[in-house]
């Protein structure tokens, strides 16, 4: 296993990092949160750069590199839901400029003489309120509906940048048959890896901000970062991030290479990201002291993005249960 970026990937990471630093600075995130600014121009930038076209499995590592940086920047666009939740459910039928969302449960499909009726309510759908198209997983297969066919209402969340929506399917009429060839399980692995690497990016941002703070904040006449109690927390945060990052990219790589360990890797990625955010949230906010406890400090965006991920697509504990089950099965 050669688990290090090759030179193309290193260059790609550098490019993405430069773009996000320029196009998605925390001042922009701040105006989205405090002034209700529309992130649509940023979305158009991503589209223009071709980032929304990184949806083929083979590009999973390159997509992960983008997602890590967007996690770090607290991306305010529907990029995550579009590329890692919607796209894998509608393989080959995406349009680069249209945002998408995925409904994994809560909707049933009923067949009648004119086609299909979708009914039910999907809760807390990522970007469900601002997607142009919605992929709906049902027992009959995967349907795709336009946003204007459903009624979606945004739910406020502790992460002020995050869009979550409840979507009501009130006998939505669909004429076309559902896609029954979609590998829904694989699509879910893509979603897990994508969310995990986004959380890792947010955790790296928390660590970077905390390091910057403890290097500069003086108490007792010295930078607080010179105290061993502070250093050891920082070291533990770093190890947690490295561990979660390795497992997130491993999941991306198993998707790119269509490796049979994909299922296990996806759960490991999500579980590790969840464990990482716990360590990093607690130590990051603690090291900031009272200054991190304010709305005006940008630390909040990364803290909340990291924590929010733990509440989507299964918690760390749920995925550890899957890992134990899967691994014992693999061993026998």
């Amino acid at each position, binding site marked *: *296993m050669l688990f290090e970026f090759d030179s193309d990937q290193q260059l790609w990471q550098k490019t993405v990092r430069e773009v996000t630093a320029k196009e998605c600075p925390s001042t922009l995130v701040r105006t989205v949160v405090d002034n209700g600014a529309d992130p649509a121009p940023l979305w158009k930038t991503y589209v223009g750069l071709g980032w929304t076209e990184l949806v083929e499995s083979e590009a999973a590592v390159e997509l992960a590199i983008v997602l890590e940086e967007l996690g770090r920047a607290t991306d305010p666009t529907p990029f995550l839901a579009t590329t890692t939740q919607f796209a894998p459910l509608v393989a080959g039928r995406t349009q680069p400029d249209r945002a998408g969302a995925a409904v994994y449960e809560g909707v049933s499909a009923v067949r009648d003489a004119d086609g299909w009726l979708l009914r039910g309510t999907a809760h807390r759908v990522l970007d469900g309120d601002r997607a142009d198209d919605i992929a709906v997983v049902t027992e009959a297969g995967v349907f795709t509906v336009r946003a204007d066919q459903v009624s979606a209402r945004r739910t406020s969340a502790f992460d002020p940048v995050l869009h979550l929506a409840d979507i009501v399917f009130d006998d939505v009429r669909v004429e076309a048959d559902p896609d029954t060839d979609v590998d829904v399980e694989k699509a879910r692995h893509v979603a897990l890896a994508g969310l995990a690497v986004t959380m890792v990016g947010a955790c790296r941002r928390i660590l970077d901000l905390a390091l910057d703070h403890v290097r500069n904040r003086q108490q007792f006449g010295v930078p607080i970062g010179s105290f061993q109690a502070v250093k050891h927390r920082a*070291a533990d945060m770093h190890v947690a991030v490295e561990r979660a990052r390795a497992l997130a990219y491993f999941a991306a790589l198993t998707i790119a290479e269509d490796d049979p360990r994909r299922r296990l890797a996806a759960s490991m990625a999500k579980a590790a990201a969840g464990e990482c955010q716990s360590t990093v949230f607690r130590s990051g906010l603690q090291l900031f002291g009272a200054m991190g406890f304010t709305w005006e400090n940008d630390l909040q965006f990364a803290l909340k993005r990291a924590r929010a991920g733990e509440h989507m697509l299964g918690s760390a504990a749920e995925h550890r249960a899957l890992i134990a089950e899967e691994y014992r099965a693999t061993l026998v």
Partner: protein
Amino acid sequence: MQLSFDSDVEEFRAEFVAFLDEHLPDPSEATVRARSSADVPEWARRWQRVQFDHGWLLPGNPPEFGGRNATILQQYVHLEELSKRRIYHSFNPQGLGIIAASLLSFGTDEQKQRWAVPILRAEITAALGMSEPGAGSDLASLRTRAVRDGDHFVVNGQKVWTSGAHDADVLLTFVRTDPDAPKHKGISVLLIPTDLPGVVRRPFPSVADGDDRDFNEVFFTDVHVPTENLIGELNGGWSVANGSLGHERTLLWLSFADRLQDLVEDFHPRTVLDRDRYATLVMDHQALKLLGSAALVRESRGAQDVPALSVLKLLGSEAVQTAAEHALDAAGPDGLVHPATTSAYVPWNLDNFSSSWFERFVRSFAGTIAGGTSEIQRNIIAERVLGLPRG
């Protein structure tokens, strides 16, 4: 990034597997057990020599030193194949990995022939004299004194935790040769034969078992060591120390990966909580292998990042300890039994990690204490990886 190695590495692996299949000692020959890390039974000496002669002992070495000039990635798959079958290539691991390696890096040609080759061929065994009662994490404060007297050094002082010393033929010993210099700049290294007058070795048992005698106190009283036994430059011992511990550093994490692999196989979850902890073990094992292989790739590109290796040591050693404790928990009343066998018996290793659950747990502290404690690793990570100020 790729999940598989390039074909040259896989061909190398296949070649080694074929060698193992042909030459690994039959279990019926491998019945005599070693009593310490410098006590090598006759069958294990023969086995080490076969590997040396075929260039498989330390494949990264040139052929005259038991290798075949293998790349770092080839060395990795070599160790991976050994660990898969729980095979030790040497029963004097510090002799091979630290003492012979230091001699090959810092010794003269004569010193290499006189000591490194016999250690590699298991004709003699070696132990490492670094720590002292007053010099552990602060190794540079060591006080064992060596005073030049004509063509000898006269050595006085004490070492401790010297694994295998009572069974070793030679000790690679760190001594103070200039007490007036700053502490890192007054240290030298002497190769001290244990049969010299004035060398007294006293083995003492570890917490793991009253019969487990690997540690030693070693006392030096007016020991006359020929000056030709000076390894490296006079007062240049600190760079040998960094080199000695550095030799195996890139691959050190593999020993923790091995312990984790053993635990993945041997830990039997019973409760829901056990299963949750078992999943953590599986993740730690995978993450360590991923991060370790990334470090290998960096080294193979000539971009080795030594402080970053502290992440591997900290993660690996702590993960082993956590998993060993959890496996001990899961054993319930069976966890009380000692001695006990907790995994399949494998004749080609020292059994240390397949003994009772308590022993496996308590031995995990060797990982978090030796070779730089977890606390020291955290300091290194904070200061040299994350750039926090020295306290």
